[in-house]
């Protein structure tokens, strides 16, 4: 009952992006995927969420294959992906962006309830429901993006660098919310981050990728204390 990725390879045309990726995450765990820019972290998420096709290998969620499926099929199986760089639709209002996540379930009452939960989680959104999304700040957009994913009532949440371009205190708040969410909803989270230290602090396990290959994986606290890894990848 978990996310198992085995021998996954992906390429952009002729250039290979990921080679032989293996790792697994138990249900309810938070895995931090760490690596330098261009290591292939985003490609990994886009492949797992169906936006990108893999060349070989497979990935299963709750023992069912997820590669080669369209994103809207995976959402129906509880996998929501908050893509890179504030994935909100600026032309729509905050409320409409949230409703979007619930349309596929078809029950308006259920979506309204999910939206209330999100507003509790992110009160700032509550104040600006009818405003157009492009009036939001960077942090608020990230909250809205995560909010929309939550409205889809996911079991597995793929988060692509939520901290990108945010002020430190906002990052702190986002990470606290993710951690709080995980425990409250029993969510499994795959968190892609460059902000290695703060990610590993809230993670159960860590996966370190470099130049398209997994160089290390294991419990987060071991990885933090391993001097060799810390020097090579964590920068101090």
């Amino acid at each position, binding site marked *: 009952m978990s996310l198992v990725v085995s021998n996954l390879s992906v390429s952009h045309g002729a250039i290979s992006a990921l080679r032989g990726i293996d790792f697994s995450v138990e249900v309810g765990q938070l895995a931090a995927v760490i690596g330098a820019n261009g290591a292939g972290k985003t490609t990994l998420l886009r492949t797992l969420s169906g936006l990108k096709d893999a060349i070989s290998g497979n990935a299963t969620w709750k023992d069912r294959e997820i590669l080669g499926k*369209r*994103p809207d099929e995976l959402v129906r199986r509880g996998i929501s992906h908050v893509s890179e760089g504030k*994935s*909100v*639709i600026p032309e*729509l209002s905050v409320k*409409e962006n949230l409703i*979007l*996540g619930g349309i596929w379930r078809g029950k308006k009452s259920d979506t309204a309830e999910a939206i209330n939960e999100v507003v509790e989680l992110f009160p700032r959104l509550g104040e600006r429901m009818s405003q157009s999304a492009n009036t939001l700040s960077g942090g608020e957009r990230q909250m809205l993006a995560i909010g929309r994913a939550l409205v889809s009532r996911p079991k597995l949440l793929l988060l692509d660098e939520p901290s990108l371009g945010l002020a430190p205190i906002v990052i702190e708040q986002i990470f606290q919310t993710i951690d709080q969410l995980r425990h409250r909803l029993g969510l499994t989270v795959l968190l892609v981050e460059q902000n290695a230290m703060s990610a590993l602090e809230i993670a159960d396990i860590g996966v370190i990728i470099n130049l398209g290959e997994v160089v290390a994986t294991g419990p987060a606290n071991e990885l933090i204390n391993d001097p060799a890894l810390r020097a090579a990848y964590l920068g101090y």
Partner: protein
Amino acid sequence: MQKALETLLIGLSTGSIYALMSLALVLVWRSTRVINFAQAGQAMFSTYIGFEIATRSQIFWLGLLFAIVAGALLGAGVDYFFMRVLFKHANSGPALVVAPVIATLGLLGLIRSIVGLTWGGEFKSLTAPASKNGFTFGEVTIPFSPLDSLTIITVAVILIILALLFQRTNLGLALRASAYSPEIAQLAGIRTARTRTIGWAIAGGVGGVAGMLVTSYNFLTPYSLDLLLVFGFIAAVIGGLESMVGAVIGALVLGIGLTIILNYVGTSLVFIGGFSVLLLVLLIKPDGIMARGKVRRG
């Protein structure tokens, strides 16, 4: 003064038919980034279906209903079978820009030939739902007829239905989201390919209504909607191609403008007037009157 009022009223009724065609073009443009030149062919085909039903049943509205359904089915069919195959194959080299334009033109020619071969090219005239006799006040008859007023009302009703659909329903939200950013919509669980087909279907239905309304004024032939396509395109460009409200406003502006030319300047200058309006808009305000800062170099 009375002539000015007449011109305004007739301008509104002609403009409202252009609005349907420009709306259909914008609907498809926003969802597929393609200007569907075959829209005239689809509208003409569904008008022929509507014509058959209306003549047999002697009820214009039944014909209109069938035209809408036929238009919607054809629109969905064109997207599902034609456009998907097209995008699967023509996705590289200079063809990427050229292919959709030429393909939709080829489809326009194909539908026209099929209609020509089945229905023949003779003129078909449709019994209009309302009389074309101008309203008479005392002994003055103005050229604005009940049919004109009926046209404006029908178009207004359709615009309201579409506005409600887009603003108030989940389907409308899904349509807008898939048009603005298909990837995020997909990640939110929307089946964007199916939504796009629904968008084409709505455009096809709206095109069918435009065809039926135009045919109640003039004869129906496999070529009779070409001019409507051109004026619909001009109206959509004036509106900026990005917003549906813009498409409607652009159409009304064009309709009134051309009627002014028709009544005050000269009948055969109508087309040159329309064409120069198009060139003017493209040169001065290429993003149309509803521009929201997005520069059109795409």
